[in-house]
């Protein structure tokens, strides 16, 4: 196990290095300047700015400088946000997005799994159809529609919850629900399909023949096996939720990282683009590792020894 994890960590570092390099060169292909109103400046004025930020150096030199600083934990300073260090910027913005993502994941994931299980146990009943309907609606309607509807009816019309902003726990409820619709529908659909398949497999029939109770079969034998694909899907989904949703963050006025990331791309704020991308990549590889380790816990048949063997 330890050897496996160590090996994975080495792969992770290589992955991150590749992600950072590819992002760096792709980013340099975006036309336009990272400075506002750059077009208004004279040649000399432009060069003063470019020199200050090392942007007059050849791209490979800029790349080497960036990588060297990155290894030392220095992600540079933002062009758009008055030289704020990118690490400070990320640290301030990552919290709200992560809280929303986790809430949405817990709410959507658990409810989705529950819906999926019930639907599978009561196949072709009204419960099944209702669950399928919710899953289809959740998957096909974009979250900003839910967000808009929730905001208008629950907050503006009924006044039950605040319309927007980020000032306390009650402010997280509406955006979390809006964000949860997607993981909910994914979890429900996968769970139902897998459950149905597992319930039809030989070992379940054997368990039944041996006289195991209904609940023992459903929860202990079926659910555990059916969870594997769901965990596979929900892991990366959790990361994408935690890294913020531009739409939800805009509608509810949440100072998260999703909105900032898109803005940094639009504004050619190179250090912020790089920093955010690296952060996302780190989250993804870590979560993938966690998911792989979880497999072993859920299903002892999957042995994590020396990956390559």
């Amino acid at each position, binding site marked *: 196990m330890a050897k496996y994890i160590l090996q994975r960590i080495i792969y992770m570092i290589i992955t991150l290095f590749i992600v950072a390099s590819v992002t760096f060169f792709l980013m340099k292909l975006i036309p336009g300047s990272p400075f*506002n109103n750059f077009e208004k400046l004279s040649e000399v004025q432009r060069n003063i700015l470019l020199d200050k930020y090392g942007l007059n150096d050849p791209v490979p030199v800029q790349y080497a400088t960036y990588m060297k600083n990155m290894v030392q934990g220095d992600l540079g300073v933002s062009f758009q*946000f008055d030289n704020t260090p990118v690490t400070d910027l990320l640290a301030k913005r990552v919290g709200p997005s992560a809280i929303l993502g986790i809430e949405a994941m817990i709410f959507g994931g658990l409810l989705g799994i529950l819906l999926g299980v019930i639907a599978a146990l009561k196949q072709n009943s009204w419960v099944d159809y209702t669950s399928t309907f919710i899953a289809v609606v959740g998957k096909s309607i974009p979250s900003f529609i839910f967000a808009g509807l929730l905001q208008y009816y629950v907050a503006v019309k009924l006044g039950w919850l605040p*319309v927007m902003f980020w000032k306390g726990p009650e402010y997280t409820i509406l955006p979390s629900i809006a964000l949860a619709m997607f993981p909910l529908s994914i979890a429900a659909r996968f769970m139902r399909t897998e459950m149905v398949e597992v319930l039809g497999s030989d070992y379940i029939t054997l368990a039944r023949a041996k006289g195991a109770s209904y609940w023992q079969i459903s929860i202990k034998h079926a659910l555990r096996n059916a969870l594997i694909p769901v965990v596979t899907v929900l892991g990366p989904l959790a990361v994408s939720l935690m890294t913020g949703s531009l739409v939800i963050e805009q509608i509810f006025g949440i100072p998260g990282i999703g909105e900032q990331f898109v803005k940094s791309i639009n504004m050619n704020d190179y250090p912020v683009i790089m920093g955010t991308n690296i952060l996302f990549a780190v989250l993804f590889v870590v979560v993938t590792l966690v998911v792989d380790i979880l497999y072993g816990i859920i299903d002892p048949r999957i042995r994590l020894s020396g990956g390559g063997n």
Partner: protein
Amino acid sequence: MKKSKLSLLLVLSLVLSMFLAACSGGDKNEGKDKDGGKAGEEKLAAKQELNVLESAEIPTMDTVMGQDVLTFTTANAVNEGLYRLDPDQKVIPGVAQDMPSYNDDKTVLTIKLKKDTKWSNGDPVTAKDFVYAWQRAIDPRVAAPYGAYFMEGKIKGASEIVEKADKVTDADLQSLGIKAVDDYTLEITLEREIPYIESYLTFPLFFPQNQKYVESQGADYAKDSEHLIYNGPFKLAKWDGPTGSSWVYEKNADYWDAKNVTLEKINFNVSKDPQASANAFTAGEADITPKLAQAAILSQFEGTDELLSYQEPSIWWLKMNEKNPALANKNIRKAIALATDKKALVDDVLANGSIVADFLVPKGFSFDEDGKDFRDTAGTYLKADKKKAKELWEKGLAETGLKEVTFTYVGQDTETAKVTDAFIKDQLETTLPGLKINIESVPFKIRIAREDAEDYDLLMGGWGPDYADPMTYMDLWVTGGGQNHMSYGNPEFDKLIKAANEELQGKERWKALQDAEKILLEDDAAIAPLYQRSVNILINPKVKGFAHHAFGPDYSYQWIKITE
């Protein structure tokens, strides 16, 4: 999911382009805004606290480093320069005691400062604070994005300092045309007479900074509201730095004119989604929203006293690149300029109060000595006329020997821009036989890059003013000018601009600028103006005395009173 993210991205870039283009002015609801002085007649609310939404974070509060309208608006509220704009866009003294006194050729200004203005750390505001800030702004080692842009060619010595680039020394900075004669007397030397210098000095780049304080903070200066000092009507609080999505203005009891500041507190929050802003307004959680451009949202509030609508001095036009041989032909350019039904564009497509622009210098923006609008004494040009457009088009085609023409049209990728561009394409193609338009919708930064490289045939763009004078729109088009980017050149036009810059004064100068505008539009059809944009915001009717400005800061909050 993917699609939804994309469309919001478009909205975001629209918002960004809005504050990049900047500014406001020219009033529709005169009575509503300008009753600040009279508000006392109505009963004031017990709680003088306001909730305001902004559409972006404050990128910096270091006034020298500012280049964004929100920085300017905030700086104008929590700091103060020599002068400021009143609700009628008139220049009134701030830290200055009076209006400047001039030497004979109006190149040296002497300005006496008030002796009782204070920084929030207790230090007096002195002439040295201005000298320090100006020298910082021009210092190439500081690399203030707007410093050189605002000072070169205007403030004596600025160009020489900029040319030195990173070899500049502290001694070089002393040659900048600003001197502290004593603690309360400032002497400013200009390269040449600048007719609009007084309003120019209201710009936050020219605000004072306390050297002792700035240097004691080092890299932490302006990091957040705790690392700043203030000399304006309000003090900034609870601002977490450039990523902060909320902040507060608190009344500054030490402000010299504090007796005329009624508001105790303003709470600001960032809301980037226009419909969400409108929702927060409806729910009573906001008293003033950001600028809203979407017709669908505005229609919900049309005809109510909650909608404040006015024209800002932001002109949108179609640039025609004369590098393209077809567009080098005057008749073809004129045909394109005349072919679009601009009235339908503003009424049906934009539907947000924007007005038809048959001119280049916007309405309600620049005024002569008698207070007369530049537009009132100038003509209108290139009024839509499809029949004439077709005639000129055919004449132009015959002259160039072309039968069919295809133009690449570069537009922005916001929702509003896409609809506008599709409308114009349709208008041009149906009016002008043999014309084909290929629209390329690109993000703001890329549009700028394409314009810079002259990589387009037609390009939809706009311009907001940098100072309150028609010149900010006119000198863009001189031969080889930094903003021309369409290979346009006319010696006669250049001559008029040069004369207006260097020799002429008053009415004669005004006349030269109006003649230049006529050459540019009527004679040469160098550019096709389409519309002047309008600002729409939602504002609680109980809020009186809200002031908006034509350039620099968007708004002033200090004269606001909340009534019962």
